[in-house]
């Protein structure tokens, strides 16, 4: 396999694995817990290194996962004690653990090649170089195997526990009442996050892992409300972002991980602006439309209220509308024009009055009944 293909596949697999676990994390509003876990695993790695007396993937893996779960447990216990609020708890626990990790490394393992840079940045460019030797044969890049396993694991988790995850995310009370123990599901999910973070960062670095976990699901949430679509879109966005980011990074010769993250950011930005219903552009168009609709209805109701009354003469003039309804001249004339176009109002008569059409009167009645 060409190195480029390996890297591309690694990135794509990482995106899949992360997006799968990221969807529910984001839905549960725990995006930053993933960030916290990714930093706090450092002392776990150190512990694994120390227990195994040397670099050992499995020991490191278990140590890091244990550290991840410890982070979650400490944070939640702290919050439960009600002495600090949740965000404060998160901001206290993971830095303390990370600081501990750095301290241990500096003090006791300073001769070790635990490059803190690599821990945080990772380097996906090295993925093709580390290969797995199984039974004396070279079976391919480690990263592909580990990420492939991770993706499968996450997909299996999601499939097996789909309804439990769904229920406990949207209605924990009901889940508990039905015997699904939301706490167990919660820790299981957090465990998956920890495992994914650990598995992911050795391949692509902690920063990229967090980005792949958080950004695609949030982007997808701007585009759909249906859960299955959300999951599919998250994976799609993640993979697309990774591949595009990789291409750009190769073209411009910059950090691959960084470029993928930046690309994901751009994709998010585009979705933020242009998403069909939730995007900013769509929102402002809708608001404008609503304002115009309200204005027309206000016009119609106002005319109907004063129709046939003594004040009709003064109240039904466009100029008075501006004053009463606080419209600018522009808005007033535009509203009148639109109302005319919609057949709600007759053209201004020679004395400068506005009159309702029958349809206009109907609309006024409807509005009143609403």
């Amino acid at each position, binding site marked *: 396999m060409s190195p480029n293909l390996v890297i591309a596949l690694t990135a794509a697999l990482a995106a899949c694995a992360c997006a799968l676990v990221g969807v529910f994390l984001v839905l549960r509003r725990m995006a930053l817990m993933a960030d916290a876990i990714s930093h706090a695993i450092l002392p776990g790695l150190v512990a694994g290194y120390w227990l195994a007396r040397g670099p050992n993937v499995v020991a490191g893996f278990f140590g890091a996962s244990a550290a991840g779960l410890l982070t979650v447990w400490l944070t939640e216990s702290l919050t439960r004690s009600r002495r600090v609020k949740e965000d404060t708890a998160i901001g*206290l626990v993971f*830095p*303390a653990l990370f600081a501990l990790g*750095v301290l241990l490394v500096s003090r006791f393992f300073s001769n070790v090649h635990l490059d803190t840079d690599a821990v945080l940045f990772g380097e996906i460019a090295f993925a093709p170089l580390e290969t797995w030797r199984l039974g004396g044969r070279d079976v391919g890049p480690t990263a592909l195997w580990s990420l492939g396993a991770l993706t499968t694991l996450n997909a299996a988790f999601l499939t097996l526990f789909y309804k439990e995850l769904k229920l406990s995310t949207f209605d924990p009370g009901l889940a508990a009442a039905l015997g699904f123990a939301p706490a167990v599901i919660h820790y299981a999910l957090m465990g998956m996050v920890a495992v994914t973070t650990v598995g992911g960062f050795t391949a692509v670095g902690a920063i990229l892992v967090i980005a792949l976990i958080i950004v695609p699901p949030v982007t997808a949430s701007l585009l759909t409300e249906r859960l299955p679509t959300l999951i599919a879109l998250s994976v799609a966005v993640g993979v697309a972002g990774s591949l595009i980011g990789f291409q750009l990074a190769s073209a411009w010769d910059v950090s691959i991980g*960084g470029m993928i*993250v930046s690309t994901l950011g751009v994709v998010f930005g585009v979705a933020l602006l242009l998403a069909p219903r939730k995007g900013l552009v769509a929102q402002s168009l809708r608001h404008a439309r609503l304002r115009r609709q309200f204005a027309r209805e206000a016009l119609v109701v106002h005319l109907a209220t004063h129709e046939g009354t003594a004040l009709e003469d003064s109240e039904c003039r466009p100029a008075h509308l501006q004053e009463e309804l606080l419209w600018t001249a522009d808005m007033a004339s535009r509203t009148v024009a639109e109302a005319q176009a919609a057949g709600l109002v007759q053209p201004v008569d020679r004395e400068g009055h506005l009159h309702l059409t029958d349809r206009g009167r109907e609309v006024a009645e409807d509005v009143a009944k609403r």
Partner: protein
Amino acid sequence: MNVLRDLFLDYTLRNIALGAAVLGLVSGVLGSFAVLRRQGLMGDALSHAALPGICLAYLLTGSKAPLVLMLGAAAAGWLGMVLILRIVRHTRIDPNSALGIVLTVFFGFGVVLLTVLQKRNDAGQAGLDKFLFGQAAAMTQEQVATMAVLGGAALLVVALLYKEFKLLAFDPEFARSLALPTRSLDLLLTSLLVVAVVIGLNTVGVVLMSAMLVAPGAAARQWTDSLSKMLALAGAFGAASGIAGAVLSVTAERIPTGPVIILCVTLIVIVSLLFGSARGLVWEWLRQARHRREMRAAMAAEGGTTP
């Protein structure tokens, strides 16, 4: 004592201690507001978001002067903060996720810029990523001075607008009904947070910044119910941790300053949680144990009537 003498005479130790003390004081006070307004993690996001600002500042000016880099960090942090607020206000994306996105995307972009700098073969680039992980050991007098001036200005703003910030943090709706420009004040207060983050980056680094902000305030809250006392105590805790961390890292071998400062302040938090005022956890456990004993005694007395 040697340490005490060195604190004043030794250039390195004095600088580090002073810088760390300034940092501790400023983040303690400003971070307390973050704690009260549930913006603890904003500090984390801001510190990550600062990276591209630092790189751009260097790219555009070619200077590695602390003030320049800090301004770059502040600008990027500020931009990140505005984006977060906008995203939260205009979409249903929850604040947690908004923070996470800005945090990672800005940082990722910063990493890209770092590699761009790397390619230019500028030896100068080397200092930049240290700026991110904290390199307190190399703190210069110039850096300390810059930190002190910026931090002092921030604290002055807090002192002047104390009652406005207090009301804003407690009851923003009522504040608005009083004609306070709450949105501007909100922006101002969060901007001060940016200042605290920028000051702290050099000492404790990106990852640990959030603790530097929330830990002193969280600890102080366990001891007092008065906002002014809480701020003062938080500042004191922060400064003390800074100095203790500095001393420990200089006197012992192979102990990095940033992490040990964080561990000191975490220790203060733990002690405060356990023993603080009347709400300390230890006092509560003792009360509960005594209560249980009393209940058991009462039940034994009632049920133990022998015919």
